[in-house]
């Protein structure tokens, strides 16, 4: 069967089971948009290529399947670099297809030429420039294989226009042997000796903590984690990337560690004598000053990526392997710590003394952002997926939203990309149309990618957006207040400009607003009742509210600042 390269690309995506592609056409990718018309694949036409990338990320984070985006060459391709870099930091599997100028023009500064494989070398797991139509099926199959196995990540395929237009005899690789990846071996065997050494460390531990990172979700090891934790009764902390990997409400869950972590989670790690890191990478936002992090802890570090082992913290037992596989091996070996009663009673007292908290709000408003989040959660159906932007609202969401299930938290962790929320929520809703999807966004973040609500409306993707409108780049404002003597520099945004209700309406969405607690509960009901179009709610929240606890950047986790109302008590 003779196909054009463009047809072969679409057919290859179909072979991979792709149901949705997020994208926006242009000259170099034009040939591919023609056979797309005859395909079963749903294409979602975005308003900016950054939106396509974040949508693909949201789709992937909510479904566990790779997200796919397609854009044209030059500016189309550079516009999607931010989401690619974001996915690279968070190990999210993406396949991004970029058009490229014809092979004969490459290197000649042709119209909309851009060396996108060069630009994305450092922010992709791998990328390909496809030079013949015959190679297309292999490139696609290899891209999906690379994106989804080992440590997942984004893979880019750059497709010159003439390659898309030329013809090939259709074929498709049968399996990894056909992918021509002689240097890629994602499967690693477990070393039994490592497992035995880990078991011995666990048996000797008195203050162990399970330090659960996003890799646990990527490995789909949440059932194994739960079984292991429940049997050993080792306390669990779930990082920003791992919210939902272990039920929030579970009695063994201490919550999120790190810069804005729960006091008990941060302190349990600091005082621990054994950290069992599962798909976590000792990020500086978790460790604080690394030299002062968990000084008395031995470390068992499990990661599929061997370069993570020893990168930041030397492990006593470093195990390269899939988290699920290692947990199963530990279960088989019967790893059991001695009695943890003393440890738990210490932890319980920290939990009792320093719970997450915030002040009551005045009846006339403004609202407390934390209260908004708790109210949204209380009225959301089980299994609701939550996306967020980056800033204070993100930290409050991570703290106060009770994530019970894996893949229910869609967030930009490693890169901290403002503007991630709205498009990521759209992608999540496309992947999980059965679920309610809330985007809890900041007013600053919202303005970066809000135009994708036009996409949501026109494609019939009814997400709900809660803007925690504090009229500031709040997180930056918080740092200026606390560490720059309240010298506020370029952080004020205005609560009314834009008018978020009118902006929402202009984009075909329902726009609502709440200033008082009474209005808040009314609009939440109203928003929940709308399921056919996107809804945007402008929640007017207190601009002076800060995220606590907080470990100042570069400080030791021992110097954690708790909420002001908790500071007088003796620790």
């Amino acid at each position, binding site marked *: 069967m003779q196909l054009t390269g463009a047809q072969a690309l679409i057919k290859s995506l179909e072979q991979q089971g792709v149901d949705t592609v997020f994208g926006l056409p242009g000259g170099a990718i034009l040939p591919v948009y023609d056979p797309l018309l005859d395909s079963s694949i749903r294409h979602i036409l975005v308003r900016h290529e950054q939106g396509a990338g974040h949508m693909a990320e949201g789709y992937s984070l909510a479904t566990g399947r790779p997200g796919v985006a397609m854009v044209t060459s030059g500016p189309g391709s550079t516009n999607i670099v931010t989401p690619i870099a974001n996915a690279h930091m968070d190990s999210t599997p993406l396949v991004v297809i970029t058009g490229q100028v014809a092979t004969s023009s490459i290197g000649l500064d042709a119209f909309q030429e851009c060396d996108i*494989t*060069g630009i994305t*070398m*450092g922010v992709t*797991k*791998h990328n390909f*420039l496809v030079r013949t139509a015959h190679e297309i099926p292999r490139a696609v199959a290899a891209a999906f294989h*690379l994106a989804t196995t080992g*440590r997942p990540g984004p893979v880019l395929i750059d497709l010159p226009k003439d390659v898309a237009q030329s013809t090939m005899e259709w074929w498709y690789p049968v399996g990894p042997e056909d992918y021509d*990846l*002689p*240097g*890629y*071996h994602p499967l690693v065997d477990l070393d039994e000796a490592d497992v035995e050494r880990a078991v011995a460390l666990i048996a000797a531990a008195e203050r162990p903590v399970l330090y659960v990172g996003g890799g646990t979700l990527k490995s789909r090891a949440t059932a194994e984690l739960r079984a292991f934790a429940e049997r050993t009764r080792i306390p669990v902390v779930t990082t920003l990337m791992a919210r939902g990997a272990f039920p929030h409400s579970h009695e063994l869950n201490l919550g999120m560690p790190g810069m804005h972590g729960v006091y008990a989670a941060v302190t349990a790690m600091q005082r621990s004598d054994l950290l069992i890191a599962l798909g976590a990478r000792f990020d500086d936002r978790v460790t604080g000053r690394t030299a002062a992090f968990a000084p008395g802890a031995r470390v068992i570090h499990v990661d599929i*990526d*061997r*370069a*993570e*082992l*020893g*990168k930041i913290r030397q492990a006593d037992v470093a195990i390269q392997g899939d988290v699920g596989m290692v947990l199963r091996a530990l279960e088989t070996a019967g790893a059991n710590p001695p009695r943890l009663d003393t440890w738990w009673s210490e932890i319980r007292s920290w939990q009792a003394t320093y719970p997450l908290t915030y002040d009551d709000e005045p009846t006339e408003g403004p609202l407390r952002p934390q209260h908004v989040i708790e109210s949204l959660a209380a009225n959301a159906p089980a299994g609701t997926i939550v996306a967020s932007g980056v800033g204070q609202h993100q930290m409050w969401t991570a703290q106060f939203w009770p994530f019970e299930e894996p893949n229910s938290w869609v967030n930009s962790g490693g890169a901290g990309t403002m503007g991630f929320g709205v498009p990521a929520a759209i992608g999540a809703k496309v992947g999980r149309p059965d679920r309610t999807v809330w985007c809890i966004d900041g007013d600053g973040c919202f303005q970066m990618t809000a135009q994708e609500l036009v996409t949501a409306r026109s494609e019939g993707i009814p997400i709900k957006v809660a803007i925690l409108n504090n009229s500031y780049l709040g997180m930056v404002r918080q740092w200026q207040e606390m560490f720059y003597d309240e010298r506020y520099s370029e952080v004020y945004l205005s609560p009314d400009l834009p008018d978020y209700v009118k902006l929402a309406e202009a984009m075909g969405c329902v726009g609502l607003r709440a200033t008082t607690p009474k209005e808040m509960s009314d609009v939440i009901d109203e928003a929940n009742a709308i399921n056919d179009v996107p809804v945007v709610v402008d929640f007017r929240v207190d601009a002076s509210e800060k995220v606590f606890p907080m470990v100042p950047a570069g400080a030791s986790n021992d110097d954690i600042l708790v909420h002001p109302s908790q500071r007088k008590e003796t620790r």
Partner: protein
Amino acid sequence: MNTPEPFAGETAHSPVRHHILSVLVENKSGVLARIAGLFARRGFNIYSLAVAPSERHARFSRITIVVDAESTPLEQVVGQLDKLVNVVDIWDIAPRDAVERELLLATIATDVSNRTSLLDILGRAGASIIDVDPGAVTVMLSGTPASCDEFERALEDYSSVELHRTGRLAVPRLGQELTSTERGLR
């Protein structure tokens, strides 16, 4: 990519500071950029780098990278290199376990006054003359990096020396155990 200072004083008497990574890569366009980019963005320094097709010529090339063992987190470098999809195998060779060689070419201005002394130096170093014209000679030395260093120092007294070195190649000494990342190629 910064090129650190040469390993000054690295002789038979003082401790060895360098380390050798012999990296087998797929012979595809952009692979060298991937490796150089990785070193640059992670702040690892390359001291010297030599690239050429390998024994499995058409498909693979061998890149010999010499790094400063003191300033470079070797395990990190190997771990990060190993993640590059086009990297097939990494030999991590400590200098004491390696046979290292380097090629040096030098063009030296000559006249009657210095010709005899130059021939003397060439003879002692085991270098050979590979090109001559009335005012200059080009000489070649292949040998251990230390012998190249020594030869380079011996040439310091001559004006107008144009010097080229290839950077080291290294193979493990026969009978040495060697750490390799290779899994199941061939």
